[in-house]
Every structure is written in structure tokens, then in C-alpha cells.
């Protein structure tokens, strides 16, 4: 699946988002946000073909971004299918209060 690489993609990546990891996480968040938004639209317009196809396309992109992130940086959620269970990597992640960008 091709990643979203429209010219705007990097415009809203914050200046203080320095690491590749942060940028990759921001993309997952953005795709997820888009899905929530279109999901709300679909609640009111359940038969809108354009919205449905947008949802399908961005669901794929979100899962791909999530999968890429997980394989490279470890789990985002405890039960993601791409989580490496050779050891319990869940506890190795930086916890929210250890994340420098949020301090």
C-alpha cells in the first residue's frame, strides 16, 4: 500500500517533532483521526459511497502505518497482530510521562 505522500503531508509535522519515531506516530494518529471523522459522517450518511471508499482507503493506510510503526518501534496497543511476542515488549515502550515531547 502506497503511503500518503501529498505535498501537504509534512506541512503539519511540528518543528519539535524531531525523531522519525515521533513522525511515524503522528501519521498513525492522523490516519486514526481521519477514520473517526469519516466514521462520524457515516453514522449520519451510512450509504455515502464516497465516504465509504474514503474510509476503506484510509483504514488500509492506518493499518499499514500502525504495522510499520509496531515493527520498527514496538507495540502501540497491547494486542496488535504485529507485536513481537518473543518477549513482553509492551513494558519497554516509553510511557506517556517518559515521552520527552509531552513533558
Amino acid at each position: 500500500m502506497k503511503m500518503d505522500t501529498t505535498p501537504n503531508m509534512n506541512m503539519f509535522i511540528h518543528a519539535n517533532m524531531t525523531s522519525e519515531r515521533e513522525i511515524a506516530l503522528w501519521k498513525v494518529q492522523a490516519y486514526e483521526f481521519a477514520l473517526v471523522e469519516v466514521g462520524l459522517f457515516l453514522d449520519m450518511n451510512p450509504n455515502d459511497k464516497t465516504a465509504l471508499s474514503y474510509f476503506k482507503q484510509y483504514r488500509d493506510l492506518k493499518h499499514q502505518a500502525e504495522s510499520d510503526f509496531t515493527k520498527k518501534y514496538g507495540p502501540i496497543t497491547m494486542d496488535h497482530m504485529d507485536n513481537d511476542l518473543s518477549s513482553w515488549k509492551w513494558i519497554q515502550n516509553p510511557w506517556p510521562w517518559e515521552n520527552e515531547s509531552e513533558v
Partner: protein
Amino acid sequence: MSEINLPYWSTRRDMSEMNIPYGTPLNDMSEMNIPYGTPLKDMSEMNIPYGTPLNDMSEMNIPYGTPLNDMSEMNMPSDNIQANDMAEKKSEPCPKMVLAMAYVPKQVWETPYEVTEGTHRGTLFPELYKPFLGGGNKP
């Protein structure tokens, strides 16, 4: 950490309603006598099945929301009597609209923002992008 301090709101002695462990008994809620809610025939405003037509809502002409200088109630007058007088003068009858009912026109699909831009703006849809413009400044 040797001691857990409970937050102030969690002390159960302040919650007298908790004495009824299963909630308010049905016979204390007289409004529950209408088991299926307000019958449709009692709601005359429901005669407009699709809500208020957009052309009846003149305030919708301001695409960026109410400019702050049009919201005199935001001036916070010093006493409530004055505030009530102002509210009374301001309220004019709106044809076909009843009090305490909200009207939301149905959203139609439009080309969304690119996802990171949408996340940044707080909405994916340009139509719903309503930044707060204090003082009524236009972008």
C-alpha cells in the same frame, strides 16, 4: 509510595444518593408515567420533518461564527437584572422555531483536508472548520 490519597470527590459519605443502591425507584419519577416518551402528536414542531430550512436561519449567513462584538451578553453586565432586560430586548420571535430545540443541518460530503492537516485543524471537513475569532476578525 506508602500511602494512597483518595481524591476529595471519592469520599462516599458525601454522596447521600448512594444510600439507594439500585438508583431512583420508578415510582418517584412521575415523568416516567409516559413510558414511551412524548407522543409525536404533542410535538407540533415535528410537522417540519426535515428540520428548519436553511433560509429561515439568517444567522447562518456568517460562515465563521458569531463575531465577538455581536455577542453583547459577553460583556458580562454587573448585575443580573440588567442582563435579563438585555436578553428580553434581544429575543425576537423566530418563526417556526420553538424554544430549547436545536437544529443541525445535515452534513454533505465534501473533499476532506489531507489527514495531517485535518488532525492539526481539529476537523477533517473544511465545512466544519470554525476557528474562534475573538473580536470578529476574518482570516
